[in-house]
């Protein structure tokens, strides 16, 4: 892949921005070591970092497997983040069914195609639509509950906002990539900017999650002092 200097810079920033959630997790390791959502984000970040890091060295022969693996990991991580917050059991079951169907569809589409265009546009498009539906449902559910405390003080809000930013900004690039790689590739760096923003928002979410753990710990250590 030939890059212009500025695009190379954006790519490197994106690549190393995947280390930010990992670093924030390490920083708050004591508070977050048992938080599954943080662990999932760390695993996702490490895998994507490695995939992007070795992207240049990857032979086009394995591009199909690479894209499939990338999309699957991304889909599973984003779905897990949202599913952890959703309370509606039937919707969670629906998410599970859709996820299995999506992965099967992705494998079918990617490995049955004779000619693979650098990127798996159709599965990514479906992935984006599914995640957007999950996120909208999550917001709708939260809308109904409306607990006390501002929504932006919750860790998951930043995770979901990051996901929405990234997916919505890259949606058209992804579906266009297999048809018109020339134009999509020209502006592809824009998606890297939004993906970098997503990683920063993930860091905000992780920090909020760690702060909440500290607050919970403090409140539980205070004994009951009332006279009555």
């Amino acid at each position: 892949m030939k890059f212009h200097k500025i695009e190379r810079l954006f790519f490197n920033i994106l690549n190393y921005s995947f280390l930010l959630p990992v670093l924030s997790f390490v920083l708050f390791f004591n508070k977050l070591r048992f938080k599954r959502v943080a662990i999932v984000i760390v695993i996702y970040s490490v895998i994507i970092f490695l995939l992007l890091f070795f992207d240049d060295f990857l032979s086009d022969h394995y591009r199909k497997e690479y894209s499939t693996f990338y999309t699957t990991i991304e889909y599973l991580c984003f779905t897990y983040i949202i599913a952890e917050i959703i309370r509606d059991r039937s919707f969670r079951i629906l998410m599970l069914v859709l996820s299995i169907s999506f992965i099967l569809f992705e494998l079918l589409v990617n490995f049955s195609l004779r000619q693979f265009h650098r990127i798996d546009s159709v599965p990514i498009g479906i992935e984006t639509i599914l995640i957007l539906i999950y996120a909208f449902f999550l917001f709708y559910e939260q809308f109904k509950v409306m607990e006390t405390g501002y929504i932006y003080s919750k860790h998951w809000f930043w995770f979901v906002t990051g996901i929405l930013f990234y997916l919505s900004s890259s949606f058209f690039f992804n579906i266009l990539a297999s048809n018109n790689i020339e134009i999509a590739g020209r502006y592809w760096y824009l998606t890297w900017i939004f993906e970098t923003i997503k990683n920063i928002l993930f860091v905000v979410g992780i920090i909020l999650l760690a702060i909440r753990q500290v607050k919970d710990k403090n409140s539980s250590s205070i004994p009951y002092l009332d006279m009555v």
Partner: protein
Amino acid sequence: MFFLQVTTNHSDVSLVLFLGTLGMLVLVIGLILFIIFHQRRVIRYQQKLQNLEIEQQKMMLTASIKLQEEERQRLAADLHDDAGPLLATARLYLNENLVNQDKSTQLQSIYQARQIIDDTIQLIRNISHSLMPPTLKNFGLESAVNDLFQKISGSGTINASSRFHDYSDRLKPEKELVVFRIIQELINNILKHSNSSFIHLTENVHGDKFYLRIHHDGRGIVQSDFEKLTKSNIGLGLKNISSRMRVVHGSINFEKDISQTYYKITLELPKDDPYES
């Protein structure tokens, strides 16, 4: 996808790409901002409601304390102005010079002192009864209310009657006392302000609810007046009624009869669970 496939012009594709991406971003940002601002508005509204609730509770508490103080002052005045002089007079009759006086004077003095002490006993009994009606304590709400209405009717100024349709399952004593105090306060208001010619009270139960309704044909208030008065600085008795209703988890409704002739005050409260200890 289809429209992208048929598009061949590069500038058109770029336009679709930018407009599409921009549209998606606007949609997402709009959604997130909408959620944030809507939630802020809801929280602000909830806080406002909470503040109002706290304010009202404060007013209720103040009214309750004020009423308690007034009751104490009345008791103090009764004891000081009535019982005190009576006992002092009795003491005068029984002074040290009594032994030096002749027998008939002694007997007369003792008789007078006994009379005064009897009056004092009666006075203290009245004070005690006003604090806790013995009929209510011993025979329950139905008897206490009937007793109260008979006394009012006996005065001859107003026709008062009461009827309990179904009171086989009595309310808990503490609940009965609260309900009785509310009835007392309502009757007191009717006597003071309504200038009515009759008061009628009926009781019934329906499902797990206990109902009491007071009718009168004088000047009265409707629910909006009641709510206004409980939120204002006046209407101490009504505030007290409102706070007592909260204690028994009940509701009170002031309305005018369809015929526009009578005022109705309806109390609704949950019946006690028979299995509850």
